[in-house]
Each structure stands twice: as structure tokens, then as C-alpha cells.
């Protein structure tokens, strides 16, 4: 695949559709339901030592203290979110019960502007898809602005009886709950209106961030949350997504139309760190590294994460046609250089101040061809790799405009691009295999690459009608429905439906990497790649030959990645750029210099000295707590860690045939069976038994390394090591499950 010369696309951006008509009418319809005053404050050493609680049923608004134990055990971010959620729910709580919460928490280091990738928030709730806690990390300004208004987390509980906006004014110290009867549903319209509405003047728009979702979140279980920032250069809002697990659906179930935070003007030292010089020095070092190395390495500043589209294709890892295959001849049509040409400004584009990696990309000048915004010219945030692969190759969509339109509508309708990509691919394969047909889909011809039908399914999801309603339940519930209706072979449907724990797989082909099979299905929340991405180590480098080697990787990396979620860090500046001399280090995959940077940033912010072991213990406490939380909710055991067979090996004859050489070689060399005279069906059965047995052995090794029983329950000994034995209910759950 040869990249063509890229020139910026020539688009007249003055034609971009703006959304502020009717703003005054919309504002005038608001009615104040509750006002609460507080004293705005800035964190000291990274913490405000208080969180904000809002009950949408009673409209109670209050401050809650952050205790020392909370900081010691849960640190911040995802840890705070899980702890608050634990205290809010019972084992019987389901996603749409009033006691379920949405918690948004940046971590103690979040909001620093010295080091790239420091503006993340973690969002936690009981998921409508999995019935267990989901955590989703997101950029955009809301988390840091919340923190610099005076709160380490925002806890939303209860259900409103009408649509409301929660406005947090961190400059004036006022919190208002207002009715929102006339607000538009979809994010790109709503967020632009609210940004203009709540900013005092044009210059103030950068101090506003909106959290909202869209029409499809109301009619599906896969709703996500958009977090905005005002893009001064483009003069429009931009969106980042807390995508996974259906938190947007919970948000609308609570009748929240939007959260709006107006924070203070951002300055460099707002966390009041103990050692600002170290923050600055560490940041400058990485800025220089990005400047000198990024063009030689991943080109994140130019292409963002989409730089790996063609790379995944070359390594046979790009999901194609519902994860059946790993590459496609048309991948060049959605390769990174195509998107580079669509992202007109051709510059780094950060979702928080100070990020010189700036991988957020805006594809400008897309004129929509379908749906309620047909004819509008919009800026699309993306596509990122997951969107290009999920909405593109996995469904056989290789037309860039169609892919961008799918991306746009996912965002504005408030549904997760990863989830939608995987569920759409599943429906297409069901259509291919006769499990679905035109009659069952209400006329949608869900053939591979039929973007028109794909978009129509999404529009139906937003309108709450037709087959889109069924698809919006997600893969797990579609599987159950199709099987209950007798529409196909149950085993086939279960094998090809790419979900685990109820969450759809993200967009990497795992079947030739046993470690990545575990990297997906041995996760806490479900198969998302933000715990452990170890395909290259395992499949390409062959650095993990034994079960114990794989288990070690599946011990270290999930803990390492958890730490980012405790702090408010983005993962990308960790390992999508590396120092020039990284290859000379003992463990280059870990990027040791960057690990030291993170230790320095934490200590410089909080004053707490840590080393790598302490860092891993911080993560392990939260990681094991989340596992026990899953058990408390009735899952979290070995039976819940089993992947669909499509994630492990070839389900169909075509899949086997596409990699026959690989599978036959494995049979001969590893299983000890000569495939030469075997019929295809027998070879598939032998391969399946072998691979599932290896997966089971991997579970044994990983559980042992993590200090869990063979049923996946953390042991009491592990609990004591982690200091979690001070929590009586945690101990009781572990003991009740033989831990």
C-alpha cells in the first residue's frame, strides 16, 4: 500500500452548518428547579478533598468529603468512581434502578497542562449491557473543569421526572438544576447551543464543557456520552466519547439532557502541585521527544490512532466481515493517508491543554447524505482507528464518505462507535448466513458494505423503530432473540456473536494470539483493548511462548493501564511515541523512561513518593476491587470469562480455509495430528478442542498469577496484601465464593 501525496482538502468552512437558531427560545423555556451555592476552590496537591453529589429524584445537591482512606485505597478517577458506585448500589441493583449512579472523576494528576495526555476523566456506572460496573475513559474538558471548580468527582443518582440540565458554574460557585423542555436531542446541535448559551461571551466558550448524548441513547442499550470542548480555530464544538457499556443510556434514563460545567480560566499550576518545576521539566522532555520522534514513529500528530489501519491489515489483524478475516484488498480506501487528506488543518489537535501529541482529528467539510441532518456540512471527530475498523472494514464499508457519515451519526446520536461497529457486523454476517433476511430486518438489506442499509439501521435506532430497535439491544440480546426465534443454529449464533460479559469486542482480531484472547475476555468490564493489548508481543514477536509468560503480561499490563484511569492520564503518550534510545533499554515494550515520567508526575503533584511496585499496588487494589464488585453483582467468575469461539479460532469452513496453512501447521506441530487426510469438519473440530483447552489453561495461569482461585475469585491472602481486608463486605464476598 503506497501512500499518495497529501494536500489539505479545500473546503469552504464558512459553509459549516451552525446551530444556534432558537437559542433564546430554548433558554426562555428553562425553569429553575434547584440552586445550590458552593465555594469554588482549586485542588491542593491534586485533590479538592470533596466531591459533588446530585440526586435527580429529590434534587438534593450536596458536597461529600473525600476521606484519607478513600485516597489511600482508591487514589482517584476510576477508583473513586467504583468506590462511590459500590456504596450506592446493592447486588440487586440494575442499570435503570434509581440508585444506580453515573460518576465522573478525573484523577489527582488530571488537568495538568505540562505533560501531554493529562486531561482524562473516568466515567463509571452499572452497565445496561453487562449488569456489572463499566468504566470508560474520555478526553474533553469537562473533568478538568469540574476539578478546577472544586470537585474530585461528580456523582449522579436518582431519576428526574423531566428532562434537566445540571449546570455547574465554577467561576461563580453556583449549581443549578434546570428543566430543559425544548432542547434538541443530538449532541452536535445540543452541545453547540449549550456552549453558546452558558458562556458569558465568545471568549468564555473555551471555559465551557458539555456532557450529553443523543437520540439513539434513548432507544438502545449502547448509549455513550460525549464530552465537549470549544475549538477556537474551527469555531465549533468538538466531541470525545465515553463510549463503552451504555452509560449514555443510563444518562437518558435519568432524564439528564446535559451536564454543563463552566470552569475557571485555565492556568498552569491549578493543581497546586508540590513540585511544579518537575512537572514542567518532565513535560518539556516529552514535548521535545514528540517533536523529534513522532514523525519517525507513529505520526500521531498527523494521523492520530488511524495510523494503524493499514498496519493492522498488513499483519492480518484488521477485523473484516465480523472478525472472520484480518485483511481486505480495499483497505487502502480507508487507510490513514485517506484520513490525513480529510483532516484539513493538518496539525496536532488536542482534547486538553498542553497535549503536543494532539491526536484528536477533525474531518471537516462532510456534507451529510442521509438522516435528519441531510445536506448539513459538519466536522466529524475522527475517524480514530476503532471507528475506521469497526464502522469500516468489519462491516465491509470501504467508502470514506460513508464511513465518516456513520462515525458522525454514531457521535451525534450518542452511541458507541466500537459497539455499533461490532453489532452491525454481526447483523451482516447473520444476513449472509440466512439467520436474518429482509423480512426479519423489516426490509434492510444488511449485505457486506451496504452503507445505506447500515445508516438506515442507525437512523431507526435513533427514531426508536424497526430493526434498529432490536440491533440497539446489542449482540448478546440479539443472540438470545435470534436463538429464541429459531432463526438459526444456536451454536453458530453464539460463536459468531462477538461479545463477552455482554459487551461487544473492540476492533482487533484476537484469534491467532492466545494472550490477546485473554487480554479481551479476562478483563473486568468486557472485551475492550484498554486493559491489555499484547498481540504484537505474543503473535508477531513471539515473546510470550509459555502460559506463564502470557499470564505475566496479563498481570502487568492491565495493572499498568488501570493506573492511567486512576490518575486522569491518556494512554497514547505512553507508548505511541518512545525516546530515541528506548530500544537500548532492558524492557523497551514498557517504555521505561516514560514509566519514570509518570512516577515523577504523580509525586510532583501529590507529594507522595512511589516506585513501580507501589504504582502497581495502587492499581491492583482497584482492579481486584472491581473484580469483587463484579462477583457482588452476580458475575465475575470463570464462567463469565469465556470468549465466543470466533475470538479464539475459525468458526466456519471459509475461515479455516483462509488460514489453512496456519491451522494445519498447528495441528501437525502442536497437536501431533497429521491433517493431510482429515476432512475439513474434523480438522475444525480438532482445532477447536485444542484452542479452547489452551484458553482454559491460560485462565488457570492468569488467575494464579493474579492471586485468584481457579474460579477467578481473589483470595483472602491477596486481599490482605492489597489492604482490602479492611472492607468487611469485600471480605464477606470473597469468603462466600471460596477465595
Amino acid at each position: 500500500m503506497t501512500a499518495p501525496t497529501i494536500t489539505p482538502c479545500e473546503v469552504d468552512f464558512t459553509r459549516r452548518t451552525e446551530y444556534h437558531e432558537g437559542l433564546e427560545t430554548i433558554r426562555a423555556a428553562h425553569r429553575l428547579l434547584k440552586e445550590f451555592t458552593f465555594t469554588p476552590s482549586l485542588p491542593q496537591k491534586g485533590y479538592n478533598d470533596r466531591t459533588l453529589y446530585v440526586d435527580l429524584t429529590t434534587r438534593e445537591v450536596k458536597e461529600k468529603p473525600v476521606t484519607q482512606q478513600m485516597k489511600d485505597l482508591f487514589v482517584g478517577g476510576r477508583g473513586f468512581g467504583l468506590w462511590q458506585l459500590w456504596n450506592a448500589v446493592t447486588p440487586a441493583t440494575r442499570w435503570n434502578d434509581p440508585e444506580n449512579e453515573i460518576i465522573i472523576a478525573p484523577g489527582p494528576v488530571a488537568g495538568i497542562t505540562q505533560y501531554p495526555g493529562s486531561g482524562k476523566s473516568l466515567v463509571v456506572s452499572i452497565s445496561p449491557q453487562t449488569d456489572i460496573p463499566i468504566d470508560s475513559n474520555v478526553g474533553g474538558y469537562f473533568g478538568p473543569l469540574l476539578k478546577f471548580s472544586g470537585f474530585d468527582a461528580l456523582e449522579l443518582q436518582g431519576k428526574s421526572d423531566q428532562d434537566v440540565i445540571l449546570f455547574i458554574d465554577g467561576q461563580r460557585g453556583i449549581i443549578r438544576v434546570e428543566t430543559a423542555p425544548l432542547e434538541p436531542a443530538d449532541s452536535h446541535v445540543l452541545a453547540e447551543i449549550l456552549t453558546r448559551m452558558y458562556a458569558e461571551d465568545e471568549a468564555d466558550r473555551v471555559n465551557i464543557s458539555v456532557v450529553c448524548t443523543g437520540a439513539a441513547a434513548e432507544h438502545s442499550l449502547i448509549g455513550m456520552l460525549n464530552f465537549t470542548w470549544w475549538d477556537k480555530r474551527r469555531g465549533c464544538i468538538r466531541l470525545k466519547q465515553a463510549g463503552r457499556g451504555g452509560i449514555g443510556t443510563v444518562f437518558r434514563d435519568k432524564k439528564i439532557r446535559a451536564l454543563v460545567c463552566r470552569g475557571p480560566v485555565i492556568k498552569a499550576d491549578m493543581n497546586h502541585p508540590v513540585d511544579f518545576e518537575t512537572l514542567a521539566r518532565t513535560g518539556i522532555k516529552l514535548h521535545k521527544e514528540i517533536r523529534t520522534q513522532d514523525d519517525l514513529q507513529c505520526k500521531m500528530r498527523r494521523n492520530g490512532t488511524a495510523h494503524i489501519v493499514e498496519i493492522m491489515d498488513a499483519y492480518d489483524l484488521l477485523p473484516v466481515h465480523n472478525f472472520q478475516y484480518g485483511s481486505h484488498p480495499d483497505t487502502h480506501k480507508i487507510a490513514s493517508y485517506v484520513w490525513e487528506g480529510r483532516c484539513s488543518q493538518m496539525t496536532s489537535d488536542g482534547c486538553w491543554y498542553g497535549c503536543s501529541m494532539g491526536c484528536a482529528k477533525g474531518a471537516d467539510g462532510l456534507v451529510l447524505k442521509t438522516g435528519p441532518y441531510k445536506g448539513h456540512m459538519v466536522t466529524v471527530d475522527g475517524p480514530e482507528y476503532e471507528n475506521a475498523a469497526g464502522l469500516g472494514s468489519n462491516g465491509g464499508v470501504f467508502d470514506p464518505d460513508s464511513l465518516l457519515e456513520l462515525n458522525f451519526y454514531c457521535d451525534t446520536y450518542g452511541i458507541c462507535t466500537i459497539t455499533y461497529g461490532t453489532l452491525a457486523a454481526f447483523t451482516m454476517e447473520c444476513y449472509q448466513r440466512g439467520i436474518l433476511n429482509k423480512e426479519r430486518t423489516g426490509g434492510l438489506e444488511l449485505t457486506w458494505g451496504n452503507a445505506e442499509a447500515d445508516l438506515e439501521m442507525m437512523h431507526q435506532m435513533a427514531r426508536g423503530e424497526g430493526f434498529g430497535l432490536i440491533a440497539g439491544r446489542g449482540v448478546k440480546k440479539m443472540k438470545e432473540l435470534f436463538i429464541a426465534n429459531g432463526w438459526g443454529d444456536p451454536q453458530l449464533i453464539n460463536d459468531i456473536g462477538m461479545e463477552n460479559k455482554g459487551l461487544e469486542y473492540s476492533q482487533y482480531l484476537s484469534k491467532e494470539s492466545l494472550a490477546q484472547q485473554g487480554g479481551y475476555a479476562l478483563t473486568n468490564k468486557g472485551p475492550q483493548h484498554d486493559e491489555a493489548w499484547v498481540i504484537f508481543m505474543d503473535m508477531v514477536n513471539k515473546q510470550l511462548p509459555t502460559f506463564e509468560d502470557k499470564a505475566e503480561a496479563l498481570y502487568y499490563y492491565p495493572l499498568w493501564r488501570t493506573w492511567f484511569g486512576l490518575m486522569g492520564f491518556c494512554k497514547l503518550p505512553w507508548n505511541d511515541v518512545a525516546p530515541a534510545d528506548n530500544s537500548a533499554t532492558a524492557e523497551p515494550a514498557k517504555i521505561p523512561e516514560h514509566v519514570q515520567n509518570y512516577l515523577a508526575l504523580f509525586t510532583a503533584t501529590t507529594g507522595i513518593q512511589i516506585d513501580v511496585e507501589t504504582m502497581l499496588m495502587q492499581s491492583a487494589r482497584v482492579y481486584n476491587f472491581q473484580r469483587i464488585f463484579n462477583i457482588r453483582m452476580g458475575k465475575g467468575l470463570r464462567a463469565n470469562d469465556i470468549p465466543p469461539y470466533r475470538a479464539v479460532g475459525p468458526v466456519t469452513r471459509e475461515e479455516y480455509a483462509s488460514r489453512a496453512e496456519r491451522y494445519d501447521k498447528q495441528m501437525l506441530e502442536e497437536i501431533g495430528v497429521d491433517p493431510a487426510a482429515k476432512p475439513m469438519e474434523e480438522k475444525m473440530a480438532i482445532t477447536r478442542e485444542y484452542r479452547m483447552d489452551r484458553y482454559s489453561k491460560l485462565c488457570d495461569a492468569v488467575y494464579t498469577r493474579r492471586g485468584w482461585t481457579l474460579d477467578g475469585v481473589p483470595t483472602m491472602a491477596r486481599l490482605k496484601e492489597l489492604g482490602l481486608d479492611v472492607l468487611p463486605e469485600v471480605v464477606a464476598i470473597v469468603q462466600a465464593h471460596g477465595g
Partner: protein
Amino acid sequence: MIQVNGDPLAWTPGLTVRGVLQAKKYLFPMLIVTIDDRRVERADYDREPVPDGAVVQVIHLLSGG
């Protein structure tokens, strides 16, 4: 014949590191290459010869995710 990440690859006279990467379709930009445990700098990929019988390791850093 040479070994690349444990797999055999046909050797041809004049084979360089770049030739190995192209033959294996190793497009990923963050690589560490060793020939018989000797690290090869990125700047030398085009001219560094790979001898017959060499054991080549091409470590891909993690990225992704």
C-alpha cells in the same frame, strides 16, 4: 535460510534489514531489530546486511489500544 521471530525466511545474497522487513510486511514503525543479538539502528536498516543463517528478531513495541 534465516530465522525471523522464530520463523524461517529464505535468504538471498544482498539481503538487508529493510529487505527482511519488506518480506515479512512489517510496516509498524516502532521496531527494535537485532541480528544474532546485535541491535541494528533504524538509520542502518537500508544498508545493514543480513548474513545467511542469521537469527533476526524484530520486536514490535506495543502501541495499539
